[in-house]
């Protein structure tokens, strides 16, 4: 829990990882390119005080993760969202066994989500059932730009993916976190296109689709889809650190999200170990949409409470003390959820 100015915030970090990108685990040049890309994100968007040396960035281990994520007792709960990246790393990028052992040691603090890949076919379906039982899965993390043999990406509305979603539905895996990376095939179309989210969200209304990075770099397409689907959420991984390096852009992102998808469907994430949650939570609680951005209304304390933890707690049935709860917004199921959030004349009043 985080407290500031007499307000208490229950905090859920909805996207963390325990990765291993050390050279001995890199399978080829792409393993290095991938972690270097992450490190450039880290260097470009972090405050100077939060910068890590490259060596530390490659691997953190469980002990350090617990210190980094739960320092000062700010974060109440965190959810692992592992990426497989089997073509880039010998033992994969996300370290399943280590993360699972940590989750078992701290069940009140950690939830482990696992991945699946429809290109694993029938065998993958059996594996998903086994994984669901072993990890008691409530959610999965899907990275559609993952490479797999000669395939360099897949789509959520591929027929085989539907078989996997049917198993999710059957087993009660209700939270589908989607990272729309630059999917390669077919190259003819926009690699970051989020239209497939629209299709699966319509066809699986009993599953929640949390689009990570709020669709960036296609914020506009994501907002447009999310506003039409009651079961589409936005995860703030990678968007959060803009709060420091580009606060006005962050304000625009929040303004757009509050208008199109509303305060009940936005999830805080640090994307650890890309960044650590402490400074992000502190910055977010202090954050306000600048008054001269007259296109947007100010963001309220209750809205921040929901984004920082209550929305994710609900998706994962994480117990929240009654006094920290906030009532749902009286928002419509679809359409702009909070038209006042972008009312020029209201914002200027």
């Amino acid at each position, binding site marked *: 829990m985080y407290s500031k100015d007499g307000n208490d915030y229950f905090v859920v970090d909805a996207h963390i990882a325990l990765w291993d990108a050390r050279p001995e685990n890199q399978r080829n*040049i*792409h393993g290095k*390119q*991938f972690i*270097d*890309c992450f490190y*450039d*994100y880290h*260097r*470009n*968007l972090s*405050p*100077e005080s939060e910068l890590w040396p490259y060596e530390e960035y490659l691997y953190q281990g469980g002990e350090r993760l617990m210190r980094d994520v739960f320092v000062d007792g700010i974060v109440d709960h965190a959810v692992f969202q592992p990426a497989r990246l089997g073509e880039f790393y010998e033992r994969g990028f996300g370290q399943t066994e280590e993360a699972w052992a940590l989750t078992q040691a701290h069940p009140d603090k950690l939830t482990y989500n696992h991945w699946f890949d429809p290109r694993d076919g029938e065998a993958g379906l059996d594996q998903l059932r086994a994984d669901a039982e072993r990890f008691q899965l409530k959610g999965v993390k899907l990275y559609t730009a993952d490479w797999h043999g*000669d395939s*360099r990406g897949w789509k959520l509305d591929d027929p085989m993916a539907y078989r996997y979603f049917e198993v999710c539905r059957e087993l009660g895996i209700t939270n589908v976190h989607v990272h729309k*990376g*630059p999917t*390669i*095939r*077919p*190259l*003819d*179309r*926009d*690699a*970051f296109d989020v239209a497939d989210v629209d299709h699966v969200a319509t066809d699986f209304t009993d599953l929640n689709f949390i689009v990570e990075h709020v669709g*960036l*770099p*296609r*914020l*506009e397409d994501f*907002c*447009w889809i999310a506003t039409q689907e009651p079961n589409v959420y936005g995860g703030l991984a990678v968007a959060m650190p*803009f709060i*420091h*390096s*580009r*606060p*006005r*852009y962050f304000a*625009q*992102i929040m303004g*757009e999200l509050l*208008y*199109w998808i509303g305060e009940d469907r936005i999830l805080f994430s640090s994307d650890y170990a890309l960044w650590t949650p402490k400074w992000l939570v502190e910055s977010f609680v202090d954050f306000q949409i*600048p008054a*001269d951005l*007259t*296109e947007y209304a100010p963001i309220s304390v209750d809205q921040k409470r929901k984004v920082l933890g209550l929305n994710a707690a609900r998706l994962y049935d994480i117990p929240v003390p009654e006094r920290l709860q906030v009532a749902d917004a009286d928002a419509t199921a679809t359409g*702009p959820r909070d038209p006042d959030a*972008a009312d*020029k*004349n209201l914002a*200027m009043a």
Partner: protein
Amino acid sequence: MTAVLPRLSDAAVTAALDTVIDPELDEAVTDLGFVRSVVVEGTDVEVHLRLPTSFCAPNFAWLMVSDARDALLAVPGVGRVVVELDDHHDSDLINAGLAADAGYRGTFGHEAELSLDELRATFQRKAHTAAMERALTEWLRADASRTEQAVGDLVLADLPAGTSRDSLLSRRAALGLPTDPSSPVLLTPEGTRPAPETVAMTLRKARSVRISVDGNAHFCRGLLTTRYPGSDADQVFRPSIDSALPLEVLR
């Protein structure tokens, strides 16, 4: 008697590269700092491009390097043209395809279906939408009494002369949309005038496009500088409607 060998002018090469646009960001690769090096020897030219990450989408990377090659080949008097993409996960594939003049499908094989024309058109439409929103938001901010609803009645002749209007007009022309002074400024994605009750929504949709494009451009420039220290010196920023209020607070 000594023959004077003709030499390609640097200005002609730069002018050619200035026409190459990053489709996602709607800015010239020269302004974005994506041109890493230009070497002219006689009539031959070799250009290297660089991008903000190894994992920038290869289809957009292909559009930029193949457009650069086409633009250079069109320079009068040009000899051998070499364009290469550096430090990308698909550099080998793309550079080989370009050198062999294999085209998009010949280069990417089973990963390519027809062409990148539709992709290009999608982003030309986004570029127009963002330019339209910039012009309208600038108009709105110029006078606090102006309302979003009034935007629906605005025609091109109502816009003040300047960068925003010029930029909108050139993007209209590229898409074949009307450019005459009596044409409405606010258009739906289908290119029609929105009904009065959908004016505010149309503007806000356009705003999300502009914020997305400008935010991405800003982040890409930052990542390029992180990846290639000193490359900020090669970057020229688009005049922003937020220019008095920069998106970035420098550390």
